[in-house]
């Protein structure tokens, strides 16, 4: 077998895998659109997006409360997970001694490997009663769901942020320390700003998981279709809606669930575009390249 042949096959093989992943995504989107558009046509785009009532048995398909629910849960969990995760990453990358890092890193990564149904059941059995006793209501709430999600997305944010912080060239740190800055000043003014694009990437990944998480949210969020008056009110997320009702849906209801999927796709695209914009803006440019 000649060298040319081997290289040729490997190159084409890699190209093929790359193309197939693009094709798969395209097929998924085409399929979701094909199944979902009939509902958008029969219900009407605006009354679907901004409708306040979801009662498939009465032919009412409005998903606005669920859009608010999904966004609320995601925002609340990012609000808790980002500071926690970023500080944890700074600690692991800069401050923690090696021995401690060897214990902490695998522990945090284990969190990412636990199946979401386990988190959901944990939430249902321990967190929901805790919330009911200490904050009132039924315990099933947007806040409970966010707390569970926070734990689920923390490992992503910590490990990606830590990698970003560690990939800052040593020269930056040396230069800063040589100029007389303390360790904390170096972290705050040099390492952290230089790592911001990577940290934003970690937030994007965490957000993706938060928007897409279904099972754990179903178990603790209460799944009531309403705009929450406070963070202690039950809500239903878009993903939960699809998972809860798909088994029973027929006709327009079935299409409406796919239309919910279309909205979810667009929501994620919009969030990604916003996040990527900040990622781009914060890029540190040095010489010809950037970090």
């Amino acid at each position: 077998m000649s060298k040319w042949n081997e290289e040729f096959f490997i190159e084409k093989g890699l190209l093929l895998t790359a193309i197939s992943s693009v094709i798969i995504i395209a097929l998924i989107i085409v399929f979701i659109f094909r199944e979902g558009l009939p509902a958008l046509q029969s219900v009407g785009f605006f009354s679907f997006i901004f409708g306040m009532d979801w009662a498939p048995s009465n032919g009412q398909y409005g998903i606005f409360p669920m859009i608010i629910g999904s966004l609320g849960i995601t925002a609340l969990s990012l609000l808790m997970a980002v500071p926690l995760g970023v500080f944890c990453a700074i600690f692991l990358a800069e401050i923690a001694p090696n021995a401690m890092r060897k214990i902490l890193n695998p522990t945090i990564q284990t969190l990412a490997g636990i199946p979401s149904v386990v988190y959901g059941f944990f939430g249902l059995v321990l967190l929901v009663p805790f919330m009911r006793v200490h904050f009132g209501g039924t315990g099933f709430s947007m806040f409970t769901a966010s707390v569970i999600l926070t734990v689920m997305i923390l490992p992503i944010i910590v490990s990606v942020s830590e990698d970003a912080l560690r990939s800052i060239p040593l020269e930056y740190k040396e230069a800063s320390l040589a100029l007389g800055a303390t360790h904390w000043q170096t972290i705050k003014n040099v390492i952290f700003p230089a790592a911001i694009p990577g940290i934003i990437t970690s937030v994007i990944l965490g957000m993706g998981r938060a928007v897409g998480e279904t099972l754990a949210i179903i178990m603790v969020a209460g799944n009531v279709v309403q705009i929450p008056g406070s963070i202690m009110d039950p809500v239903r997320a878009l993903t939960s809606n699809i998972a809860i009702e798909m088994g029973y849906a027929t006709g327009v209801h079935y299409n409406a669930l796919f239309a919910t999927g279309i909205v979810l796709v667009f929501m994620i695209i919009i969030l990604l575009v916003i996040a990527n914009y900040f990622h781009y803006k914060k890029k540190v440019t040095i010489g010809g390249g950037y970090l």
Partner: protein
Amino acid sequence: MDLKYGIGLLVILIIIIAVLTFGTGSNYERIEIAGSTSVQPVAEKLAEKYMEEHPNVRVDVMGGGSGLGIRSVSQDIIAIGTSSKNLKTTEKQGLNEYPIGKEGIVVAVNLENPVGNLTKSQLKDIFSGNITNWKEVGGPDAKINLVVREEGSGTRSAFEDLVMNKTKVKSDAIVQTSTESIKVAVKQDPYAIGYISLAHMTPDVKAVTIEGVAPSVETVKDGSYNLQRPFLFLTNGEPEGQLKEFIDWCLGPEGQEIVKDEKIVPVT
């Protein structure tokens, strides 16, 4: 050299795929069952026992909900659809119904809740939101927390047919997607009320008596406990051959014994 391994791997892969597609199944006769998640456990037990006695038949049981069962059997996707609610006339079209058992629906409250009996109209008022405080039905002065099943669930539609009678369930009731999670929710919240199937009843929640009748296998069987629903096997048209044999076996003494073991009330 690497290419040789690649080719080897490819050949193995093709063999595996070929075996998976053509190898198995050809010696078996398959019966596929899908539908109500409440019927699923008993159907699985029936299938297991039947396959032991008839090694030439494979019975696969899937869940998905009563709606899915009715839909897929009428589209001929599966041989037997299961339903844990009575069919509407629009759904019946060409389907044969075989009741394999009856089941009670238990209204469950927390063990700490002093309320022991409710009338059907009280139950209706509670779930529609006319009664919102336990005080009104002889309990403590606390808000009633409703826990219901998701729309489309067989248990939910049976409960709505039996109790709600077209009245809508209060819209801010907590929705849980399985009997188990309803039980967990009721077990933890002293002011919660929910409904579960009799077969899943355990001592960690309290069953409310309805009009003075406690839910049990006996009261469901003699009809005095009237929150009850049928477990149905549905076929599209007249069953034949192996399929007919399986259904007959389920309705026969052996099958009904298994049904009874699962805390479902047998039909015979």
